[in-house]
């Protein structure tokens, strides 16, 4: 049996904004049209749509046929994929498996989220749907609050100062200055982070990703077919998803995500690679502390030492491990269910040397980590230039 892999042959992304007048459908169509044009495909065999909150916020479900028919593709099999903030990453995993099965030759995998235009309590309630409604939400804790409890424990146990933790949002804002599609184009300092208002102690406003709307779409086909469409296909070297308890309080150690470690180890194994092989990295920095934990869980730093990479400049675009090169969730933006797909699209641009002012020097292997809920789902993708 010949084992063809799966390749990304086109990408599309909308700018991320909190003042968008575009509907959920218009956002998805804009990104999908860009990806379809980019790949130069004239047919679609299946469509996967990642999204977290459309049912709650827009009172709209059944996004598969909604998006397919808006693109004139009614008739194709469609699937909505939901895994909270990892919806995009998990949609990528499912779409990749469809192509790997050989049943679908050309697949559209996208993700979309519209979060603006709602009150803070409404969005806060929606995000908390990633945790257990009956066991945990009853306490009045918010999603930021759960991450804040992680941050407090992490800072306490590993003696990590807020100043050091703030290096990540500072780096993300710096990188996003060169990304025209980023939500925030504003340079910030460590002092700005520490002076920003408390959201859920100890996390402050600039520790947290914002509220934004956006869609990202990629086109997948087999590695065998990929060169018919592009001279620079990018192979999905590994796509792994792992899960953990839905609730944070049931974990033995909340300063690491077991699902991150499991998905990463499986992905490295499948791709026959190690952390030292990764040239460019996208981590799920919805909150500053999560970025530090990601550097540790993905095998780049010892437990409690993730921030050291930032302090040493290794995560800068000219460093050894360029991280969140388009601004990450913090500054590119975090339209929750779509973020995992933005990461795939951005890594593809890096590996094909199309990242413009965000380009890092000649990368050949990239890794993306997408977290759903409070580490309850993690998708890890390794992409490789072929």
């Amino acid at each position, binding site marked *: 049996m010949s084992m063809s892999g799966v390749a990304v042959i086109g990408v599309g992304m909308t700018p991320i904004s909190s003042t968008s007048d575009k509907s959920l459908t218009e956002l998805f169509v804009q990104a999908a049209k860009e990806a379809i044009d980019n790949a130069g495909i004239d047919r679609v065999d299946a469509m996967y749509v990642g999204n977290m909150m459309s049912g709650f916020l827009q009172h709209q479900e059944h996004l598969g046929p909604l998006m397919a028919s808006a693109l004139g593709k009614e008739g194709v099999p469609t699937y909505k994929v939901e895994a909270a903030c990892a919806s995009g990453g998990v949609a990528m995993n499912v779409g990749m498996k469809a192509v790997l099965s050989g049943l679908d030759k050309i697949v559209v995998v996208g993700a979309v989220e519209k979060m603006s235009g709602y009150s*803070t*309590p*409404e969005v*806060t*309630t929606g995000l*908390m749907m990633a945790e257990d409604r*009956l*066991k*945990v*939400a*009853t*306490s*009045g*804790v*918010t999603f*930021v*609050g*759960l991450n*804040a*409890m*992680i941050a*407090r*424990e992490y800072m*306490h146990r590993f003696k990590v100062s807020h100043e050091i933790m703030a290096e990540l949002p500072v780096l993300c804002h710096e990188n996003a200055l060169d990304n025209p599609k980023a939500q925030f184009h504003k340079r910030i300092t460590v002092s700005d982070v520490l002076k920003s208002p*408390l*959201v*859920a*102690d*100890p*996390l402050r406003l600039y520790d947290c990703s914002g509220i934004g709307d956006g869609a990202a779409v990629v086109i997948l086909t087999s590695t065998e077919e990929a060169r018919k469409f592009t001279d620079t296909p990018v192979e999905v070297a590994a796509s792994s998803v792992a899960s953990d308890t839905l*609730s*944070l*309080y*049931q974990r033995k150690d*909340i300063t690491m995500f077991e699902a991150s470690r499991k998905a990463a180890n499986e992905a490295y194994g499948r791709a026959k690679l190690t952390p030292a092989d990764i040239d460019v990295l996208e981590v799920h920095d919805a909150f500053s502390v999560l970025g530090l934990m990601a550097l540790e869980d993905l095998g780049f730093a010892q437990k409690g030492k993730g921030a050291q990479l930032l302090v040493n400049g290794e995560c800068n675009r000219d460093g050894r491990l360029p991280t969140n090169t388009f601004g990450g969730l913090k500054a590119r933006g975090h339209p929750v269910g779509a973020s995992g797909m933005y990461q795939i699209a951005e890594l593809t641009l890096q590996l094909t040397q199309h990242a413009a002012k965000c380009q890092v020097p000649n990368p050949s292997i990239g890794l993306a980590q997408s977290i759903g809920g409070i580490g309850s789902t993690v998708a890890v993708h390794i992409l490789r230039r072929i």
Partner: protein
Amino acid sequence: MNPVNLPGVVCPKCHWSDFFKVQTCPLCLTAVTSTSFPGRGRIVTYTVIRYPPSGFEREAPYVVGIIDLDDGPTVIGRVKAEPEKVDIGLIVHFSRETAGALEFVLV
């Protein structure tokens, strides 16, 4: 003042326990039995909610913590105290359950 006992469930086979009243042990799938735990515990970590979800707007700011019971499971609940008086490692007592939420007080 002695703490109030905290109601919950325990697995008769593998001794898994939780405050939330499930019917089946998630570790070994045995039917659990009702029990109660001494309501004394220690704050593992906590936060102060300043931007609450719908329905909690009038209560903010308030403290939520993860509490490790001395003789029972780790749970999540409200700590009814001034935020600046709360810290990791402090002893708390369970006081009551309201609308599915556990409430603790500093000792």
